[in-house]
């Protein structure tokens, strides 16, 4: 499980944010286009690609993409 692949999958869910601007340290909820739809999309993407059922609470307590990735890894 590679963080680079995870970042690429997250980047897919953003329309206006340049994929090259996303890194493990990006505070994803502070991006201009952050929305409840993107939050739901992250949960659905992680379910589909990693077979991990994230909760809304996992999104709430994560700040960076790395934080999210760590939760996915712990539960995979």
């Amino acid at each position, binding site marked *: 499980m590679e963080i680079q692949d995870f970042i690429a999958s997250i980047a897919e869910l953003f329309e206006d944010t340049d994929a090259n601007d996303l890194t493990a340290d990006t505070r994803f909820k502070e991006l201009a286009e952050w929305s409840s739809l993107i939050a*739901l999309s992250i949960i659905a993407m992680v379910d589909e690609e990693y077979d991990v059922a994230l*909760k809304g609470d996992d999104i709430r307590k994560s700040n960076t993409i790395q934080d999210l990735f760590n939760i996915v890894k712990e539960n995979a």
Partner: protein
Amino acid sequence: MYNPFSLNGKTILVTGGSSGIGRATAIECGKLGANVVVTGRNPERLKGVFDELDTSAAQRHQMVVADLATTDGIDCLTAALPNLDGLSSNAGTIVGNKPIRFLNEMDIQSIMQTNTFAHVLLAKLLFKKKLLNKGASCVFTVSIGGTLSHVPGSSIYGMSKAALDSFVKYAAIEFSARGIRCNSVCPGMIDTPLVNSPTLTDEDMAIDAQKYLLKRYGKPEEVARTAAFLLSDASSFITGTSIVVDGGYTVNH
């Protein structure tokens, strides 16, 4: 005693009777004097509701375990039914909160099967087999979701409800030949096991509840009493329409 809202002597079938809104409707109908037939899949939960039904006016109740997502289940249920004066059609499900790009065919089929097709096929059989008495009332639990409110991640749920709401109007027209009334109830968020989605935090739910004029989600009893009104003779001139029970959510949006 004068009470046009009474359900005394009426026999009413309540689907989705093992939980939430259906459970509350079954209990309310029993208290208003009806003989209740409750149905659901989970035998323990269903028995629990059956045992709670009021019998102080010598009502006779019945419980039938059936999976309405299958033709067999609908056939078994209708085979076990007495003649009815009312139907409260509640069986319903939700599959996560999935944005459209993540939908798969299974999700779509299973939601449509339970939330739309099951209600349509049951209503059809009840009418065809003449299990609904003349002047009976059918009440379908739809939702503001898909009819009046559209939030991301609930497209198939909303679609299943809008389709059912449309069907109710056709049923009102065709079933009027026997004086049978058909209406829907459209609840906003109601505190039941259905809305405990893991994708939402408690904080999300608290913020959402503030969008309701009454600053809270509804209780199953509040939907049940609306259904009971539509099942009673107090609503004898109401058919082919829908009652919104949403604490002022849609008027505020």
